[in-house]
């Protein structure tokens, strides 16, 4: 038998099927079919994170293509129908802002129409009104976490989007509606997995630890690209079962996953408490399954949810020139420094801008673009990409300065006496307007009297 339950307790195990680390990364269809045949209690998949940067939250959009999302989501909706269990996506549309949730709802409705299904969809929204957050900040209900930037109420008000990370309580409320599909805005990566075992009275330490191990799909096993993993929660532990042919979970692959994208490998903060895995035991049940026990959940005095916020940090225009001439490659750094100084002087002179009102930077790809002054290695490059980056207070201004930088990147000589050089521009127009750029400005928690404060839940039928 491919999969058998591990009978260690009296309660029925809760099986959470995680098809992959994120919708949009694809999953192994044969492994998914195998998992459905085993009989999951829920299918849970993550739709995003902050990992791709602040622009997705700032703009409230997904990083993945709509067509890819639709194809993968249709496969999961079809699998859900066969299993007859709820399907939940957390952090829909990469950032989990309301606009991204609406995008995901629209895709879901299209699939329901196209496949002739009637589906009950619960939508859990996590966006927070910046004005209300500024007021909460003034009232002392928003506090910083370690490494948080200094913010003011005005900073909060200036955010393009703020989301609160829902925990297991809000996901449980959505599951309690009896919906076939739950589209959640920003949630913690783990909440969508931990919610059902917690609702069924499972061990809290096991629920959160199993959720952390499973949140990236099969990344906690060998053959991580296969995606599909089943996490089976029992009375006081959980078992990790990768579903792809040949994929193995070992005590090493499972315990090592606590390191992943986690500053502290033993502690994980969640709404309502934290997980401590210092005393967890990882036991191989056979060559491919691992059971984990001994994880502890430590409830907190206050119920808080983490906030993420992104705001506009200026407007950018970028250009690229490629140096291939040996002498210019060897002297690229002084060439670039000279260009920045001359271009800045021209901008101040012709646009009347204050020196601090704009930035002109050239990063030398092939030499020091990764680390700048921190680079420790030197080697003789064949060619160097000169990436010009202009940042200013408006799109028009950034583009205008980009056009002033253009002739320097094309023709700037190392010495005044030599014949005018020309460098390779890979495209026309040479200036690429990036529009608004965004920055993350919140690493804070918001205190709530009730977990549903600030979250909204709505049930709709589609198809």
């Amino acid at each position, binding site marked *: 038998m491919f999969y058998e339950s591990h009978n260690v307790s009296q309660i029925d195990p809760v099986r959470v099927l995680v098809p992959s680390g994120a919708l949009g990364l694809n999953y192994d269809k044969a492994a998914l079919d195998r998992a459905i045949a085993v009989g999951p209690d829920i299918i849970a998949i993550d739709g995003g994170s902050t990992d791709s940067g602040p622009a997705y939250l700032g703009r409230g959009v997904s990083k993945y293509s709509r067509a890819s999302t639709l194809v993968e989501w249709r496969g999961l909706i079809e699998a859900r129908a066969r299993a007859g269990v709820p399907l939940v996506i957390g952090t829909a549309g990469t950032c989990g802002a309301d606009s991204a949730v609406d995008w995901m709802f629209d895709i879901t409705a299209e699939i329901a129409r196209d496949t002739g299904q009637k589906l009950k969809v619960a939508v859990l929204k996590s966006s927070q009104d910046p004005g209300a957050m500024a007021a909460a900040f003034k009232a002392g209900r928003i506090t910083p976490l370690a490494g948080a930037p200094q913010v003011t109420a005005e900073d909060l008000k200036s955010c393009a989007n703020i989301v609160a990370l829902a925990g297991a309580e809000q996901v449980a409320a959505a599951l309690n509606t009896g919906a076939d599909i739950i589209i959640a805005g920003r949630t913690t990566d783990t909440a969508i997995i931990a919610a059902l075992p917690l609702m069924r009275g499972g061990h809290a330490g096991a629920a959160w630890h199993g959720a952390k191990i499973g949140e990236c799909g099969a990344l906690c096993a060998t053959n991580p690209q296969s995606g599909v993993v089943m996490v089976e929660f029992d009375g006081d532990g959980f078992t990790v079962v990768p579903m792809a042919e040949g994929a193995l979970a070992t005590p090493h692959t499972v315990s090592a996953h606590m390191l992943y*994208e986690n500053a502290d490998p033993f502690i994980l903060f969640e709404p309502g408490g934290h997980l401590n895995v210092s005393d967890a035991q990882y036991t191989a049940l056979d060559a491919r399954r691992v059971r984990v026990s001994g994880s502890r959940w430590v409830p907190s005095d206050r119920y808080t949810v983490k906030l993420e916020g992104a705001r506009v940090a200026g407007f950018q225009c970028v250009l690229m020139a490629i140096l291939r001439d040996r002498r210019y490659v060897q002297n690229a750094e002084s060439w670039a420094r000279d260009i920045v100084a001359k271009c800045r002087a021209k901008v101040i002179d012709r646009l009347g801008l204050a020196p601090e009102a704009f930035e002109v930077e050239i990063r030398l790809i092939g030499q020091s673009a990764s680390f700048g002054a921190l680079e420790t290695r030197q080697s003789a490059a064949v060619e160097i990409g000169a990436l010009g980056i202009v940042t200013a207070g408006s799109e028009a201004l950034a583009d205008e300065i980009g056009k002033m930088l253009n002739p320097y990147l094309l023709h700037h000589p190392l010495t005044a006496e030599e014949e005018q050089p020309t460098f390779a521009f890979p495209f026309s127009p040479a200036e690429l307007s990036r529009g608004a750029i965004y920055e993350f400005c919140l690493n804070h928690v918001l205190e709530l009297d009730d977990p549903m404060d600030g979250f909204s839940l709505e049930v709709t039928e589609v198809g």
Partner: protein
Amino acid sequence: MAELGQIAEKIRSKNAGPFWLTVDIFCGTPEAFGQVCDRLKTADVAALFGVTPETMKRFEIAALNVVKISLPRPQIQGSRLDRDMHGASWAALLAELDIS
């Protein structure tokens, strides 16, 4: 001269949220783990990354032969001066650190 990357099996750097960076040094064997624990100085990593050592967290996990170092991101993820959205390349810089 012995570079960290020659002693460790694999080094990985990732974001741990937008404000923290975490580096996992998979040493592979207890011997390599012992060498890395002894010879890799947190202060040297701080100097290499351009941060102060007081802000760094270091975990030596014998069960996994892993040394993990977490630090506030040298530049907040995606801010104007950040050069590496996913914090991917810090591992490569650290791999070339001489720890002989």
